[in-house]
């Protein structure tokens, strides 16, 4: 998706290359194609294209990838509600906001 770029430097994504076993799962699952394998190690080739979906981390067998764990594929209204819920302690229903 080269025609759409979002805010640079915002995504929370960390790859521990030492722990990487080179299975290539992250390369397969990333919908933005930001990983590549070199010498049996995964590397991030397009960090700013990351949308923090978390597919790579979920499919890494050695937990070498860390992605923003906040569960937030939501619209602005949902995020506002989740900010409010942090204050009030009430749970947010994704589909009734």
């Amino acid at each position, binding site marked *: *998706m080269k*025609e*759409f*770029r*979002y*805010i640079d430097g*915002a*995504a*929370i994504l960390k790859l521990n290359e030492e722990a990487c076993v080179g*299975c290539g*799962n992250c390369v*397969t*699952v*990333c*919908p*933005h*194609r930001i990983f590549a394998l070199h010498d049996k190690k995964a590397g991030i080739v397009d960090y700013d*294209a*990351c*949308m*923090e*979906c*978390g*597919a*790579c981390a*979920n*499919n890494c*067998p050695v937990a070498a990838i860390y992605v*923003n764990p*906040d*569960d*937030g*594929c*939501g*619209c*602005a*209204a*949902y*995020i*506002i509600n989740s900010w409010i819920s942090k204050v009030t302690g009430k749970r947010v229903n*994704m*589909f009734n906001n």
Partner: protein
Amino acid sequence: MPGYTVNPFVDGFQETPAGPVPRVKTSLGPADHLGTIRARTGIAGNQYKINPGLYCAGNPSSHSPVLVTANYKLSFDSLRKELSNLDAWILVADTRGINVWCAAGKKTFSADEIALQVKRAKLSAIVSHRQLILPQFAAIGVAAHTLQKKCGFNGVFGPLRAADIPRFMKNGRQADEPMRTVTFTVTERSLLVPVEICMLWKVFFLVVPGLFILSGIGPDIFSFKACVERGLTAVGATVTAILAGSMLTPILLPWIPGRQFWLKGLLTGGVMGLAFIFLVNDQAGVMEKGSLWLWVVAIASYTGMNFTGATPFTSLSGVEKEMQRGLPVQFGGALLAIVLWIVAPFVN
């Protein structure tokens, strides 16, 4: 069985060692299209689902591939309509009627859920191989490498889009880069517009009475004439803003300068706001026109920003960042617009 009806998308049953499996039609009928419209406009709410479990397409054997999907009817439809030249099993996970990507994001579409459906369907008695083809979008929720231990089947990620399934199968179950890359075409964006707008109805009907009441306030304390005339203008500005933020911004997304959605909405709202004050109501004074313009800009910026939730490329961290910048501007703009709107009749 008494009391049961056969779903309109089922055209027969395939006998298997584990009992009959419903065979689905691979073309969509009028009922499917009507349902699609209901789902796309939000009329169907969150209740557009089918029963989870095993289905099939064509005349599958024990060697036929098993394709996994969600039990949101639109996900299921988009898969089965690609299977007209394929004999395949379709394993539908119970994702509570949510699409593949969002259900995986909320972890209802998981390896555990797939394993449960594999066992429930007695899949190992039906097919001789041990492979499940998963939608790539399920990867957020499904850790494919854990499936083997949970149910004896291996998970292989197929393409992102069901439309690429035939090509994927022809390629020897290999996905190329385009199949693995998310897109956000003008068609895909346009399909999201109705739901974006329909989600605003509730707020819209809460705001409209308020606008009419505020519009009636003036030197005569309350003027019914002003309430109707100025009220309609204010509602017109609100509609313009929603069209700018929830329709034009999504459709024109890549061509509107900037990366942050609140700014894209702001720009679109700025232009549409200008058009609105030029086209409507010559009698309005400078203060009223300024108020209307600000109102359109603020609301369009917010509704434009809200579209981040529907795109396949915005990160949560990025959205939170831009919301921290956008919200004060939007809130301040809207507030100033309201103040100017109330003050204007006293000044004239």
